[in-house]
């Protein structure tokens, strides 16, 4: 018989190793929500609150002194990880995604999406999703700034915008700016400021 293994949805480890992931706070919340019985087993009833780093896990052979130091180290690691995550979040929130429509011919246009790289979105996968969703050609290519962007054939700017907002919302990043640039709109006869 093969064992059914649960892997932590936050740090990917078997949950008994979450204490070493630097993400224990979030790991515990995940485990409590998704595998309550395992949560009970690992962190034991009396210590079921999510704040504490150690529960039953601390029973070990290495002696109080080393255990204390280990706990200190683990707490330090966690603080470091949390700082890193916060920095990354700040970076994500301060960057923006640009959806740009460009005219190809009089009737046809393409939509290019750039600025996705900081969001841990698999662009190739997303391109495939768009291709099947809109039944059109879609690819990942490098733009003039040598950054990767997704290029979709066809006039699907509105749909793309909605879809991106839904992905961002899923990632808890609904405050990220999505800028829409319409390069295919009919041009005014006189450019502004001229």
């Amino acid at each position, binding site marked *: *018989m*093969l*064992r059914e*293994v649960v892997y932590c949805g936050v740090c*990917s*480890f*078997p949950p*008994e*190793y979450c204490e*070493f*992931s630097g993400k224990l706070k979030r790991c515990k919340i995940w485990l409590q929500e998704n595998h309550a019985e395992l949560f009970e087993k690992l962190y034991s009833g009396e210590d079921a609150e999510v704040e504490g780093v150690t529960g039953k*896990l601390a*029973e*070990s*052979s*290495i002696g109080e002194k*080393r*255990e204390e130091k*280990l706990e200190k*180290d*683990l707490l330090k690691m966690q603080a470091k990880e949390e700082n890193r995550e916060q920095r990354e979040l700040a970076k994500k929130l301060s960057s923006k995604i640009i959806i740009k429509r460009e005219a190809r011919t009089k009737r046809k246009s393409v939509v290019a999406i750039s600025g996705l790289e900081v969001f841990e979105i698999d662009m190739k*996968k997303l391109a495939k999703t768009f291709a099947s969703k809109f039944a059109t050609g879609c690819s990942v290519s490098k733009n003039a700034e040598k950054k990767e962007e997704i290029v979709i054939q066809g006039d699907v700017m509105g749909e793309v915008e909605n879809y991106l907002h839904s992905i961002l919302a899923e990632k808890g990043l609904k405050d990220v700016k999505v800028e829409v640039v319409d390069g295919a709109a009919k041009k005014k006869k006189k450019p502004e400021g001229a």
Partner: protein
Amino acid sequence: MFRKFAKEDVHSRSNVKSSVQRSLKSKLVSQYPKLEDVIDELIPKKSQVELIKCEDKIQLYSVDGEILFFQKFAELIPTLKLVHKFPDAYPTVQVDRGAIKFVLSGANIMCPGLTSPGASLPEAPGYEKDSVVVINAENKESALAIGKLMMSTEEIKSINKGHGVEMIHHLSDPLWHFNLD
């Protein structure tokens, strides 16, 4: 072995024929006899086994998209995903709680971390030098790494200093996080 492994290191991917699949299964069983009972569950006849050839002559084998074992030389080595599914089939050593952090950072394992009260080594005659071993940890049920003995387990006990196990694969290394699609 997978310290710097990345998608770019994949050279080619190909589905293996059913004859190759059969010979891989019998090779796994001959290396790890206890796998015999579960081999058809691990690699069902209808499953798709894929060979992923990588930089440095490393070959990964996936079963229905999950990498279950790999090889660099003749020997097939299980990934942690495989070990977790069926832990009882491999030579195994145990580190104490104090060593876990270092193992997870990818370091080779020092002998004292294998001989202290929380650790565990097999009784004599134990395992030979160069054996591939699964690494468990004190108070944990699942393995956290796979390594290769740099000296026999009896030597680890008697010498008890320096490196005892060379790291091959551990939780959180690039192979652990490697995603095929």
